[in-house]
C-alpha cells in the first residue's frame, strides 16, 4: 500500500524563515507561513502524526447536574484495540483540578458532574472509531440533581451550591457562594445627579451565549519521553499557562512537560482554557505510546468555554441640552459551572460599563454566577462586548427621547484624552471617540435598492433571503445604525503581565541573520509577521528566522486581550535594542580606532551596515559580527496596574484603551423577518499600524463576529435541563460569505506615548460595536425595541 512511512512526529512545527520577505514596521509585509498554509503543508495540531500512535477519546456527561453513583468500564476495557480506559480513580497526583485563576475544574469528574458535556472518562485505542465505540460502552449511573440555570435559581435561599466549601480568594467577599466574583463601582452620587436629569431612560438587555467557533478543532499529540516526562504538541493561546496547570495534575515537575505550539486554527479566547491537553498526556503516560486527540465539532462545543451570556439593567439620565447626568447598571454574567476567566470578565464588564462617555456619577455592579450551564470564559471583547450592546442601545434611546441625532448625542458626551473613567483612572492617551463617529457617519451611503438593475429582473442575491428567492423587494425597508465602544488592552487589575523574547544575531553564509524565539501563540493574528518586521527595523537585517514557540523560552503571556503586538512585540523590540547595543560594542572594539564616529555619533543598524545618524556607513554588520554571536533573552512589562477596590471600584486598573466605531446599513424583509446587512463600516484608532494588511484583516474579522452575534449566533441551553441544544455547525450558525456585507475600514493612527511604537492593541475593539450598530440599524428599519441578541426572524415578525 502507498501509505507514507513517517518518523515522529510528522507535522512538528518548523522554523519559519523569512528569507525573501522584506519589510520593516509600517509595511504590509506578507505572512511568512502563507505559502505553507496555501499548499496544505502547514502542520495544524490535528495534523500531528506519530508512528505507533493511539487515538484518545473523552466520554462526557449526558446530564448537567448529577451525582455519579457508579462507573463500569469493563466492557470498554475488553474491546480489541483498546489500550487504556481512565477515570477519576486513575489520576496520578494529589492535585486533581485545574483552572486559570481558581482551580475548580476537575480533570475528570469526581463523583459529581456540574454541566452537560463535562469529561468523565478517557479511552485510548488504535483507531478513532474504536475509541469512540469503547467510550460509548462505558456505563455511568447518574443520580440527577436539580439544575441551577439563572440568577433566580442560583441565588434562591435553598439553591444547590455549585461549589460547596469554596476557599478561593473571591469566596470571602461575594454575597452568595454561587457568585464567582462581584465588582461594584461607585463614583459621585448617581441618586443626587439623577435629580438634575430632564429625561431618564431605563432598559433591560439580554446577550446570548456566543461560541468562538474557531475552525481548527481542539487537538494535539502527547508523546511520552524516556525520562518519564511528556512532550506535548498542541494548539493553545498560552503555552506557559497550560504548563502551570498541566504539570501538577500529572504529578510531574514543569521541566518534564515540554510543550511546543502546533498550528492553531483560530482561537478568539476559546483556547485560553485547557481542553484535551491533560487528557492526552494522561493517556500517553499510562500507555507509554504517543496519543493524539482530535475533537469533532460536536465535542468542540463542549470542549471550550463560551462567551458569557448576560442580563444587563441600565438607567441613564440626561439634561435637555444633551449632557448625560448619571448612569446606574447591574450586569449579571452567567459563568456556568466552573470559574475559568469569570472574575476578570466581571472586572472588565464593570469598569467598561459606561462606554466611551463622560459620566461623573455612576452606580455600577457586575457579578458572575456559578450555574449548571456550560462554563463561560474568554472570548474576543471579554466582558466589554455585553456592556457595549446595552449602553449603545441606551444612547439611542436617550437621544430619541431628547429628539437629538444619535451620533451628535454621542459626540456631545464622548470621552477624550484627559477624561476620567468610572474607576477614577485618567485616560492619558488619545481617545478619538467623536472623530471615529464622525468618520463612519461622513462615509457615503451604499446605493439604495441594490437589487434593482435597470431593465432587468431583481438580483435576488442582493436581497434579504438571498438565493432563497423569498422577495423581489416588496416589504423590504432600510435602516442605519451607529455604535462605538471602548476596550482595554492587556491584562488588568494588577496582574504581572509580561512577555519574553530571545533574539540571536549571527552571520550565516556571510549574511547577518536574526533569530527570534518567543513562546507567543500564533493563532492567525499575524504575530509571526510583525515580529520579523520589528527585528528587521531594529537590527537592519533582511533575514529573520522565527523559532517555533515552545516552553524552552520564557512566557510570552496569552495571545488574548489584544496584547501580543504590544507585549511580545514590545519584548522583541526591547531585546533587539539590547542586541543592537552589543553589536555596536563589538564594532567599537573591532573598528573603533578607524573612525571617530564610533565613539561620538549615534549609531544605527540599517541595510546590513552600521551607520551614523548622519547616514555615514562605518562597517558591514557581517564584518562586525564575524566570529561572534549575540544572544539575548529579556522580559518586557507594561506599566503596572492596580486592582479595583472591592467596595468603590476605584483604581488604575487598565493599561491602555482602544476604540472603534461602526455604521451599519441593513435591509429588512419585514414580512418574513429576514435581515440583509448591506454594509458595515468601521473606523478604529490603532495608534500605529505595524502592518496595515493585518490590521484591516483583524478589524474585518472582529466586525464579522459582532455581526454574527447580532443576527444568528447563539448557543441555546435548555432552561429546564441545562443541556446544550445546538452543538453543531448545522444548528449553531456563523456568518457565511453571503451573510457578510462590504466592510470598509478607516484606520486612524494616533500614537499612545506609553506603548511600543505608539501602537494600540486592536483585535477585540471591532467586535464590540458592530453588534449594537447592526441592532440599531434593524431598530431604525422596523421601529421595534429588540433588546436581545441574536435577532431572529420571529422577533421581527412578532410570531
Amino acid at each position, binding site marked *: *500500500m*502507498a*501509505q*507514507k512511512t*513517517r518518523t515522529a512526529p*510528522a507535522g512538528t512545527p518548523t522554523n519559519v524563515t523569512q528569507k*525573501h*520577505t*522584506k*519589510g520593516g514596521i509600517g509595511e*504590509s*509585509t*506578507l*505572512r511568512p*507561513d*502563507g*505559502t505553507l*498554509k*496555501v*499548499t*496544505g503543508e*502547514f502542520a*495544524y495540531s*490535528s*495534523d500531528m502524526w506519530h508512528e505507533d500512535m493511539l487515538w484518545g477519546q473523552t466520554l462526557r456527561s449526558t446530564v448537567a447536574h448529577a451525582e455519579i453513583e457508579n462507573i463500569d468500564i469493563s466492557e470498554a476495557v475488553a474491546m480489541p484495540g483498546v489500550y487504556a480506559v481512565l477515570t477519576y480513580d486513575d489520576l496520578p497526583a494529589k492535585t486533581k483540578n485545574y483552572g486559570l485563576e481558581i482551580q475548580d475544574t476537575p480533570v475528570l469528574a469526581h463523583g459529581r458532574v456540574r454541566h452537560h458535556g463535562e469529561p468523565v472518562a478517557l479511552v485510548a485505542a488504535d483507531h478513532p*472509531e474504536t475509541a469512540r465505540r469503547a467510550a460509548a460502552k462505558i456505563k455511568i449511573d447518574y443520580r440527577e440533581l436539580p439544575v441551577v440555570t439563572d440568577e433566580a435559581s442560583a441565588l434562591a435561599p435553598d439553591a444547590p451550591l455549585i461549589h460547596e466549601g469554596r476557599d478561593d480568594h473571591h469566596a470571602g467577599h461575594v454575597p452568595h457562594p454561587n457568585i464567582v466574583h462581584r465588582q461594584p463601582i461607585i463614583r459621585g452620587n448617581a441618586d443626587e445627579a439623577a435629580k438634575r436629569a430632564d429625561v431618564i431612560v431605563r432598559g433591560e438587555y439580554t446577550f446570548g451565549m456566543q461560541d*468562538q467557533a*474557531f*475552525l*481548527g*478543532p481542539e487537538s494535539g499529540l502527547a508523546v511520552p519521553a524516556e525520562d518519564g516526562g511528556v512532550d506535548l504538541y498542541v494548539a493553545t493561546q498560552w503555552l506557559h499557562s497550560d504548563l502551570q496547570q498541566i504539570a501538577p495534575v500529572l504529578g510531574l515537575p514543569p521541566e518534564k512537560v515540554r510543550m511546543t505550539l502546533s498550528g*492553531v486554527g483560530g*482561537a478568539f479566547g476559546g483556547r485560553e482554557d485547557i481542553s484535551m491537553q491533560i487528557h492526552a498526556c494522561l493517556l500517553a503516560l499510562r500507555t507509554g505510546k504517543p496519543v493524539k486527540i482530535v475533537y*469533532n*465539532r460536536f465535542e468542540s462545543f463542549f470542549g471550550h468555554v463560551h462567551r458569557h451570556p448576560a442580563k444587563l439593567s441600565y438607567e441613564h439620565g440626561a439634561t435637555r441640552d444633551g449632557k448625560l447626568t448619571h448612569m446606574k447598571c447591574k450586569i449579571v454574567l452567567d459563568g456556568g459551572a466552573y470559574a475559568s476567566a469569570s472574575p476578570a470578565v466581571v472586572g472588565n464588564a464593570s469598569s467598561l460599563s459606561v462606554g466611551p462617555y463622560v459620566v461623573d456619577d455612576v452606580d455600577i455592579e457586575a457579578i458572575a454566577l456559578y450555574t449548571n450551564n456550560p462554563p463561560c470564559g474568554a472570548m474576543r471583547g471579554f466582558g466589554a462586548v455585553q456592556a457595549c450592546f446595552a449602553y449603545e442601545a441606551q444612547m439611542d434611546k436617550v437621544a430619541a427621547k431628547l429628539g437629538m441625532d444619535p451620533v451628535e448625542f454621542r459626540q456631545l458626551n464622548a470621552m477624550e484624552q484627559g477624561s476620567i473613567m468610572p474607576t477614577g483612572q485618567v485616560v492619558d492617551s488619545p481617545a478619538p471617540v467623536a472623530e471615529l463617529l464622525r468618520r463612519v457617519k461622513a462615509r457615503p451611503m451604499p446605493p439604495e435598492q441594490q437589487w434593482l438593475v435597470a431593465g432587468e429582473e431583481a438580483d435576488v*442575491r*442582493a436581497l434579504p433571503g438571498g438565493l432563497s428567492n423569498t422577495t423581489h423587494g416588496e416589504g423590504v425597508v432600510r435602516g442605519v445604525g451607529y455604535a462605538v465602544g471602548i476596550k482595554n488592552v492587556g491584562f488588568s487589575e494588577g496582574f504581572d503581565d509580561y512577555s519574553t523574547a530571545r533574539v540571536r544575531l549571527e552571520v550565516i553564509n556571510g549574511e547577518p541573520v536574526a533569530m527570534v524565539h518567543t513562546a507567543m501563540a500564533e*493563532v492567525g*493574528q499575524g504575530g509571526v509577521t510583525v515580529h520579523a518586521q520589528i527585528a528587521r527595523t531594529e537590527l537592519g537585517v533582511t533575514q529573520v528566522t522565527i523559532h517555533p514557540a515552545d516552553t524552552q523560552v520564557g512566557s510570552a503571556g496569552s495571545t488574548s486581550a489584544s496584547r501580543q503586538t504590544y507585549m511580545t512585540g514590545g519584548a522583541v523590540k526591547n531585546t533587539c535594542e539590547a542586541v543592537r547595543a552589543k553589536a555596536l560594542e563589538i564594532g567599537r572594539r573591532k573598528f573603533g580606532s578607524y573612525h571617530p564616529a564610533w565613539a561620538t555619533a549615534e549609531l544605527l543598524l540599517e541595510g546590513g551596515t552600521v551607520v551614523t545618524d548622519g547616514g555615514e556607513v562605518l562597517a558591514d554588520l557581517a564584518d562586525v559580527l564575524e566570529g561572534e554571536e549575540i544572544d539575548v533573552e529579556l522580559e518586557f512589562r507594561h506599566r503596572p496596574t492596580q486592582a479595583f477596590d472591592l467596595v468603590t471600584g476605584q483604581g488604575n486598573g487598565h493599561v491602555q484603551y482602544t476604540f472603534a466605531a461602526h455604521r451599519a446599513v441593513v435591509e429588512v424583509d419585514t414580512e418574513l423577518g429576514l435581515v440583509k446587512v448591506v454594509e458595515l463600516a468601521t473606523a478604529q484608532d490603532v495608534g500605529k*499600524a505595524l502592518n*496595515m494588511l493585518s490590521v*484591516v*484583516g483583524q478589524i*474585518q*474579522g472582529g*466586525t*464579522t*463576529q459582532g455581526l454574527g452575534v447580532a443576527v444568528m449566533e447563539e448557543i441555546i441551553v435548555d432552561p429546564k435541563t441545562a443541556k446544550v441544544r445546538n452543538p*453543531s*455547525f*448545522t444548528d449553531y450558525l*456563523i456568518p*457565511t*460569505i*453571503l451573510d*457578510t456585507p*462590504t466592510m470598509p*475600514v*478607516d*484606520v486612524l493612527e494616533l500614537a499612545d506615548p506609553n506603548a511600543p511604537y505608539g501602537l494600540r492593541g486592536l483585535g477585540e475593539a471591532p467586535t464590540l460595536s458592530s453588534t449594537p450598530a447592526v441592532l440599531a440599524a434593524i431598530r431604525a428599519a422596523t421601529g421595534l425595541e429588540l433588546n436581545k441578541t441574536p435577532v431572529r426572524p420571529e422577533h421581527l415578525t412578532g410570531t
Partner: protein
Amino acid sequence: MRVNFTVNGRKQEADDVWEGESLLYVLRERMGLPGSKNACEQGECGSCTVRLDGVPVCSCLVAAGQVEGREVVTVEGLADYAAHRTDAHPGAGCASGACGTSLDAAKQWQALPSNSGLRPRAQGSQTGEAGGLAPIQQAFIDAGAVQCGFCTPGLLVAADELLERNPEPSDADIREALSGNLCRCTGYEKILDAVRLAAARQEEAV
C-alpha cells in the same frame, strides 16, 4: 476493504479501510495528505473540499468506498492541477466577453483602505516562491486572505474551480460559489479580494 483511486495524479491504494471511513480520513490519516481540513466533519464548513472527478465535494461526506477508480485533487495537488489546466487550454476564458467583472473593475480591488497610502500589488509577491503555486494560492497570500489558514485549503479548491468555470466572476458569483466555505478569521473581504485578484491576473496573463 481495499480502495484504489488517483490522488493528485498518482495512483494510490489504501488497505484495511473500514467501511465507515470517510475520504477525508483516508486522505489525512492513510495517505499522509493532511491539507484537507477536519473542521466540522458534517459538510457544513467546506474546509475539507476536494475535487472528485472535477467536482468540488466535502470529502468528509464521501465514504472512502465511493472513490474507487476515481480521481481526487486536494489542495496539495492544486498547483499542478492549475498548471496542467493552463497547459491544456491556454487562454481559456469567456469567449463571448459578456460574462463577469471587467478587468478594470477587477483591478480596483483593494487590499487596504484608500487612506492607507498603499496600493494593490499588481503582480509578483514578496514570498519569492511564486513558481510553485497556483494563481489562486498566490492571490490568497498577496491579498491577506490567509490568517489562521484552517479554512484556506477548502476555499482554494472551491475558488479555483469557480475561476475555471467562470474566469470573470462578479462579486455575487464569488459569494455564491464560496457560500459553502466558512471562515472565522477574515470576515471574507480579503477572500473576495483574493479571488478578484486571481481573476484579474488570469485575464492579464492571457
